[in-house]
């Protein structure tokens, strides 16, 4: 019970946290591009766009930062047995993240917000790039840590049977990490550009400030298109890597109970869970699973029943199969929505090429609603990867069931779960209200500069603003 609750809490808080993280990473990169454009062409509309999307970025960062604090504390609070066991390896990337990335991101964000008229233009531009870089760097360290849970490397067991780090380079050359990291960065670019596209499309639909928002919409399509196309390749590659190191994760994602060769891909099915392994209805595409999982036309995929037998032999009795329903559907939500977004991006690319993007009513309408999809895809992706690791917390080394804090009672976790959920609902509501309000605002007038970010007007550098 305590263990279950701790899992619910970690799932809730980390899924929630990751609603904001990709927006921060993606949008800070896009805002940096906008400011770079302003820096180069000196057109005021780019500065106005930078400030506009900068405000949306800050509204989002506020929640992203504080919910990240929870993650940092939660390992020790809820998962002390895990922390004690793996800290030697797992703690290092977390500490590196703080030292190398968090300081960078937070300090230069402060400089950027307040530095509009204090810093030379070039230095101020460098600040937003350092924020974007810092956010990507923090993802790097946390992904290295997470990938170690998926595929532990660079350690040896010491005399107490605990993993001890013996090769830090291995953490950062772990195949799961390399592909997983690129996957997350691309997902963030997709998320950020879809947010920017939706906001721009809304303004274009209203025929407001067409000129600047046309530029913003074009920029987001230009980032989105290569990101989503690359993402389909990278996601597929990550699937191959996981088939190698965590075969049960991928077999469960395909509800593949029996060995197969060649393997057809189940596009849609009813049933096929643990108790009814043969689905009652299924739409299949021949050979596709072989191609996706192994990269070859006739590749073999080992089914869950055999994997279960092998794991029992290796690790003793137990259930080594992750929840098939979650695996199967999170994979499909991610892949199908990804395909739709790729089509949207191609459509947008075509319109940008023709120069008619701002006049295409249907594209604008669809783009506004498409903003929901990256959040669904991101959540599905994490469900797939974390649920697919079960029953392990560290693949092959420690089971989730043994990882929670022995001294923490289920009452404690109930209390904290309720507190977090209430706070997160309040923060989410405040964030949404502000995002909708500021996303629909008009752009700043050029002569208004300074007020919004608490920076002072030139020549009167002591005036603070009510807001920043």
């Amino acid at each position, binding site marked *: 019970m305590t263990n279950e609750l701790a899992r619910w809490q970690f799932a809730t808080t980390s899924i929630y946290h990751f609603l904001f993280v990709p927006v921060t990473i993606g949008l800070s990169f896009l805002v940096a591009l906008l400011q770079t454009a302003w820096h180069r062409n000196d057109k005021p509309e780019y500065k106005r766009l930078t400030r506009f999307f900068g405000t949306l970025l800050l509204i989002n960062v506020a929640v992203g930062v504080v919910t990240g604090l929870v993650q940092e504390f939660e390992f020790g609070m809820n998962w002390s047995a895990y922390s004690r066991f793996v800290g030697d390896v797992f703690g290092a990337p977390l500490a590196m993240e703080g030292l190398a990335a968090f*300081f960078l991101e937070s300090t230069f964000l*402060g400089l950027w917000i307040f530095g509009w008229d204090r810093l030379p233009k070039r230095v101020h531009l460098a600040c937003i790039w350092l924020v974007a870089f810092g956010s990507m760097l923090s993802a790097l360290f946390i992904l290295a840590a997470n990938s170690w849970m998926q595929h532990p490397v660079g350690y040896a067991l010491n005399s107490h049977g605990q993993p001890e780090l013996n090769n830090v380079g291995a953490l950062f050359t772990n195949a799961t990490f390399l592909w997983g990291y690129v996957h997350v960065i691309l997902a963030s670019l997709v998320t950020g550009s879809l947010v920017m596209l939706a906001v721009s499309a809304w303004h274009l639909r209203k025929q407001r400030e067409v000129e600047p928002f046309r530029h913003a919409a074009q920029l987001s399509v230009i980032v989105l298109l290569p990101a989503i196309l690359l993402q389909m390749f990278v996601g597929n590659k990550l699937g191959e890597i996981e088939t190698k190191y965590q075969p049960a994760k991928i077999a469960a994602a395909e509800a593949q109970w029996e060995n197969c060769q060649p393997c057809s891909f189940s596009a849609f099915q009813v049933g096929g869970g643990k108790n009814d392994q043969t689905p009652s209805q299924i739409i299949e595409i021949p050979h596709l699973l072989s191609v996706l999982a192994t990269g070859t036309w006739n590749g073999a995929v080992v089914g869950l029943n055999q994997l279960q037998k092998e794991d029992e032999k290796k690790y003793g009795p137990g259930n080594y199969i992750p929840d098939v329903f979650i695996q199967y559907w999170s994979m499909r939500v991610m892949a199908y929505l990804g395909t739709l977004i790729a089509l949207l991006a191609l459509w947008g690319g075509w319109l940008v090429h023709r120069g008619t993007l701002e006049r295409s009513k249907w594209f604008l309408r669809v783009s506004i609603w498409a903003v929901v999809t990256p959040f669904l895809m991101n959540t599905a992706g994490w469900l797939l990867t974390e649920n697919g690791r079960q029953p392990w917390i560290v693949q092959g080394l420690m089971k989730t069931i043994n990882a929670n804090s022995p001294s923490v009672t289920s009452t404690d976790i109930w209390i904290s779960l309720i507190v977090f959920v209430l706070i997160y609902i309040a923060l989410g509501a405040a964030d949404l209200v502000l995002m909708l309000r500021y996303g629909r605002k008009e752009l700043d007038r050029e002569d208004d500069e300074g007020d919004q970010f608490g920076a002072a007007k030139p020549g009167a550098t002591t*005036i603070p603003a009510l807001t920043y």
Partner: protein
Amino acid sequence: MLHLHTLWFVIIAIFWVGFFVLEGFDFGVGVLHTIVGRTDTERRVAINTIGPWWDGNEVWLIVAGAGMFAAFPAWYATMFSALYLALLLVLAALMARGVAFEYMGKSENPRWRRTWTWCTTIGSLLVPLLLGVGLGDLLNGLPIDSSHEFTGNFFDLLTPYGLWTGVTLLGLCLLHGATFLKLRTADELRERARAAARALGWPAIALVVGFVIWTRSVAGGPDVPDPVQVLAVIAVLFAARLARTDNDGWAFTASAVAVAATVGSIFINLYPNVMVSSTNAAYNLTVSNSASGPYALKVMTIVAVIFFPLVLIYQGWSFHVFRGRVRAPAPSDPPPPTTVPAAPSA
């Protein structure tokens, strides 16, 4: 020869000290901003004194925690699970005030403003208090068994010495915030900050003296306070005295030293333990029995040697960029942000 785990104990102590010195004045400002600032504009001036920095200051806490995880996994695991409900409150408070700084000014609705103002005040008050209780408990001792698991409940955390430490750190953060506001504001706000510092001076002195005496009895050993504790008392005396004068910079320096010496003395008295067990001294967590292996410590040392100086440089530069006093707009300066109808983000 210096053991790496001793070095890491020092590094983690430095991060805790740095956190309280830097974020300490943020907490003080957060609690005092409604006292020093009476109008919305004045309150915003008070908040803007820490605006560019508070987030970076908070990272000192994150690195202190993550450093414990990496260098002393058992310490991190036992401390964070033992202080469970206290840390839950700390997180709630940090979330409330962190978002408040950013969201407060984003709407003019009075209820919206009031809500975030309360979040700022209460959040800023709770964090130093609760973390102080936690740090005091490390030294005072908590029920910990032979497998380093906490065996008590929430009320076992509320030890008298822990509570006194918490109140002492809160008091010091308030004084520190007042000297900071006095340094960073002008005119009326500065005078109100001076008045606040004056009111906080004697209580802070009493708390620190009490803390030093009590620490002597809790930590055992000789009855003479160690030099760092002497420094804490002298610094808080100076801070209280200088806060009345116009030496804003020195008053702030003195309060910073007082905070640093007080937090530092906890760690000095703790060493070589990292958590004392009140059940049995044999169950204490120490720098050697809770540390990571030598390879991990070596890697982390290299990382710290590369990145920590960089952090100091750019964070120091950020402090340099935004030095100088923050003033409310004079009525003649157009346009005063409060009354601009089209203020873009109001």
